[in-house]
């Protein structure tokens, strides 16, 4: 057992153990979930620490035979693009577990499903085999349905169905693309490195031009690429806190990760040809999400639309085909995962007390909820790209990358930052400033577990914002070979 397989299996085994615990013992269930998430978190820290930051290629490799006849191997490993994702996922898992302690309705099933989903995400980030990647990708997405339907709020049935159907629709695209790549590359192996080595031989340019959009659209569903984003507001709005954190924090990243790993890496020629199209879609998403967020009245909807906007940046960063932009895109995935986790943890804490998420009816909460105000404001500031918090450097790099290849796109994206300031400060100003109405005077500040989650995530936001160097070093070393395949570094 290596690090990566332990990280992946710990939540999964914990889910199995939890299913065996009688539901009358919620404390034990929480303890098992916490232990598993701590194990994954500590091990991913070790992976991060033991990773050679300046070396390209995959590290921490493991391989186990599974179906040799079809060239399917359980092959794991991380490079500079997936290692930050692993640690992001571990952080979201840990905080999601802790923030869900208060769930009283069927905690057993909740934790089991949540852990299975997160185990799937770990597997997809660590997989070096296209088939395993796809398998774990679906494992990650499908538990969302029961999680939202059983523990969700508002239009939960509709939202859960929509999320699942759009996820599955994306899977269909990916499935088609995956089989096509497998067959075209000689039907010998699903190994990603083997497939990548065929990018300039068996995977002909004509093939790549046809199947790149198939792959990109397939993963674009989960990455909330415009116009495939419509599951995001409903899904995040209806999902319980920890599920929103996982869905927005890491599932969306999984989509973008697939776009890079399977799309750009395996099909570089196709990526070159389709770059203008997806840059356009990303830009539309960025602007559109920002404009939409201004008009929303529900906290979660504002955040969900801002996520569409931020994922638009990620799509832009990936599709600019510039090294600077790709660096920014990957770092933005980390940053956005952390900040949305913080957002949804905080919104959930509020919803548990106030039972509403209407922006307009709050006011003056800074008076009786200072910690809450502080954490939420920091999340907003990170989201609007304030320097010193995690959002700034990645957005800077994405914009510079965009300016290198598509200056107009760069201008539009930068303008979106002003929109971000508008909708984020509107939230802060509405909810926390102004006179404190009597109705909310009884709200109390964060509970200890929520405080811990908030403080922990704020700490990560500051660390990534002030000292992004290790992240950028490892991302840069692994992104450079990807970009070299698509027409060279600029």
């Amino acid at each position, binding site marked *: 057992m290596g690090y990566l397989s332990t990280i992946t299996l710990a939540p999964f085994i914990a889910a199995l153990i939890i299913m065996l615990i009688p539901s009358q013992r919620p404390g034990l269930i929480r303890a098992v979930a916490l232990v598993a998430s701590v194990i994954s978190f500590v091990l991913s820290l070790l992976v991060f620490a033991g990773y050679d930051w300046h070396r390209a290629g995959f590290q921490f490799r493991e391989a186990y035979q599974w179906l040799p006849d079809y060239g399917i191997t359980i092959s794991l490993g991380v490079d500079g693009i997936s290692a930050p994702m692993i640690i992001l996922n571990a952080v979201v898992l840990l905080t999601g577990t802790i923030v869900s302690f208060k769930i009283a309705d069927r905690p057993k099933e909740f934790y089991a499903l949540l852990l299975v989903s997160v185990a799937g995400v770990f597997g997809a980030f660590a997989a070096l085999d296209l088939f395993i990647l796809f398998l774990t990708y679906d494992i990650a997405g499908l538990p969302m349905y029961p999680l939202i339907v059983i523990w969700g709020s508002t239009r939960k049935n509709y939202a859960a169905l929509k999320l699942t159907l759009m996820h599955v629709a994306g899977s269909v695209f990916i499935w088609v693309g995956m089989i096509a790549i497998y067959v075209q590359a000689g039907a010998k192996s699903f190994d990603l490195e083997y497939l990548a080595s065929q990018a300039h031989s068996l995977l002909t340019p004509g093939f790549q031009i046809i199947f790149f959009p198939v792959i990109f659209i397939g993963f674009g569903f989960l990455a909330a690429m415009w116009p495939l984003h419509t599951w995001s507001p409903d899904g995040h709005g209806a999902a319980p806190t920890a599920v929103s954190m996982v869905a927005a924090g890491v599932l969306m990243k999984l989509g973008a990760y697939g776009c890079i790993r399977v799309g750009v890496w395996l099909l570089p020629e196709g990526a070159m040809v389709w770059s203008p199209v997806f840059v356009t879609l990303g830009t539309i998403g960025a602007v559109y999400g920002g404009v*939409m967020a201004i*008009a929303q009245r529900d906290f979660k909807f504002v955040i969900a639309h801002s996520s569409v906007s931020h994922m638009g940046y990620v799509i832009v960063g990936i599709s600019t085909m510039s*090294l600077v932009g790709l660096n920014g895109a990957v770092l933005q995935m980390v940053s956005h995962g952390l900040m949305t986790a913080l957002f949804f943890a905080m919104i959930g804490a509020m919803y548990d007390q106030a039972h509403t998420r209407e922006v307009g009816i709050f006011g*003056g909460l800074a008076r009786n909820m200072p910690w809450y105000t502080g954490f939420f404001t920091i999340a907003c500031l990170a989201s609007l790209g304030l320097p010193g918090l995690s959002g*700034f450097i990645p957005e800077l790099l994405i914009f510079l990358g965009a*300016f290198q290849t598509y200056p107009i796109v760069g201008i539009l994206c930068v303008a979106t*930052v002003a929109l971000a300031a508008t909708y984020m400060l509107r939230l802060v100003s509405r909810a926390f*400033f102004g006179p404190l109405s009597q109705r909310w005077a009884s709200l109390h500040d964060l509970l200890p577990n929520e405080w811990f989650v908030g403080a922990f995530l704020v700490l990560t936001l500051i660390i990534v914002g002030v000292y992004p160097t290790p992240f950028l070093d490892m991302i840069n070393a692994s992104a450079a070979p990807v970009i070299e395949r698509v027409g060279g570094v600029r």
Partner: protein
Amino acid sequence: MDYAWLAPVLPIGAFALNVLIWRQMGARKHALSALTTLAAIGGAFLVFLAVFSDASSHLEGTATSSGLHLIFEDTPWFTVGVSPHLYVFAPTLVVDWLSIMMLGVVTFLAFLIEFYATGYMKGDNRYWWFFSVKALFTAAMLGVVLSYNFLLMYICWELVGLCSFLLIGFWYSERANAEAAKKAFITTRVGDVGFFIGLALLFIKTGTFDMKATFAAVESGAIDPATVTIAGILIFLGAMGKSGQFPLHVWLPDAMAGPTPVSALVHSATMVAAGVYLVGRSYPVFHASSTTMGVITTVGTITAIFGATIALTQRDIKRILAYSTISQLGYMIMALGVGAYTAGLFHLFTHAFFKALLFLGAGSVIHSMEPVLSGTGRNPNDIFNMGGLRKQMPVTFWTFLLASLSLAGIAPLAGFWSKDAILVGAYEADAWLPLFVALLTAFLTAFYMFRCIYLVFFGPAKWQVATAAGDHHDSHSTDHVKGRHAVPHESPWTMSLPLVLICVPAIAAGWIGIPGFSAGFAETVRFGPVIEEHINLVLAGAGTLAGVLGIGLATLMYLTPVSGPRLISESFPAAYKTLYNKYYVDEMYQWIIDHVVLAIAAMAATVDRKILNDRIVDWCGPFLQGAGARLRLTTSGYIYHYAFGFIIGIMAIGVVMSGGIPDMRFALW
């Protein structure tokens, strides 16, 4: 001079200490935070003194540029890319005379204003938070001052914006204050979008944010002139936002919602100065393009006259000062635009002192009016509720008068010398319209400042009437006992001491720029070769005359029984209303926000929900249901239907397998 980095780091340390440790100390946190902040800023001032003395002996300039010392030039923060396209981001700091000057102004004023605030903010239950943010604010401004890397400057620049947001919205319980804070942040952010795009344009040409390399590329012509022009104008947009230049000035008067020490710091040495400082710092980029310089001149000129005219009719003492600031910033920008580099920055230098003094004086007045007017429902900021205060508040009165004279440009106070330098600069650049506007503005400035002084410190004590009226109205209420017989009184020594101390530079700061007497400023803070300044007696006379005329007119209108103001406002109601309503710029923006931005957002939201979501995405469900409803009709329940299909299928397979249709076999395999 390598220790200059301590200047911003000390206040940051104070912020961290306040927020992380002192916050937990219960009631003592207030005193501890204030002390820590004061100590840190005092330390920064000592750093300035050390740097200054170091620089006086070591910083050697050349014929065309003043001396320059870089710190952390080779210490990368992070790097991206692979060689030869390796982009290094280094937090380069600079020590030259421009940054030393600003270092001194910021630390000196920040220290005294903090000191003042210990008295002014006494009793506020978030006293500690106020000082913490002030420390961060000072640190961010020092970062802007010292950075020699556009990225680092942008970062500190944004942090300045954040701190101004927190400080303007300090008394967030008032909805209006929260709105003002938001407005300040978003308006400056709009400018910052331009700033950032300008930086990105330069970056894609040079591959670096380093100012040294960028300026070198601009000067050597490595960047095409069109790009330089566009990037210059865009960067200037950032300066417009921060320095409240028309039409991005709207946040500045509203920023008066913050506590007065905040206004003093924001409007003298820190936030608004950052814009002018940016123009000064990035001057090579602007100077390379005459178009950019034209834009800068135009914006500065418009802003100068625009702010001055609005200030004529305002009633709120802090708003008068705010529009005065806008006008004076326009002055500086105009000077920089016409090429009078030294003059513009000289005015930034002197203006910081007397404007801080004015704000602190205004704060002192408001501080004493608040208890008097509390419970009457009358605004303690309104100059028409004051009057006759010179007897009650002598220190405030004299310092305020001194600062006003300085602002009006009366020799030999600081303002005279810098204003004169600007007039000379405009004259020498043959910029006649700016020169005329500058003189007109000088006249208007003197007028509105003395209008303010006469209404506040002279004449009948209208607050007595106000309290009497208040007594009459609220005879049944008991919660304003304090205000019933209260009389304004001089502020505590913690507030009046800084007033007196700032008087010294408000008088003398200009003397280092007196042509012939001490050419220190012209030799050190300069762009290009040293220009031998000489005094132009005609211009000096005209400037002084404009000031004196303004004072005279104000005296005539407000100190003598001539009911001038009423006469004028009634003769020109439209003009008066336009000025009083600030040319309706706010209303125009509000209209744009309500009817354009929000309308577009609402429309987009409707389109997204009703069309993209309900019509297209959700349509998939009914479509599949409909398809299923049609398809299920084929399951008729009759065996012979199924059997028929089955047999036809079997036959088709049989035909294919037996090779009945050669083409089909080819297609399948």
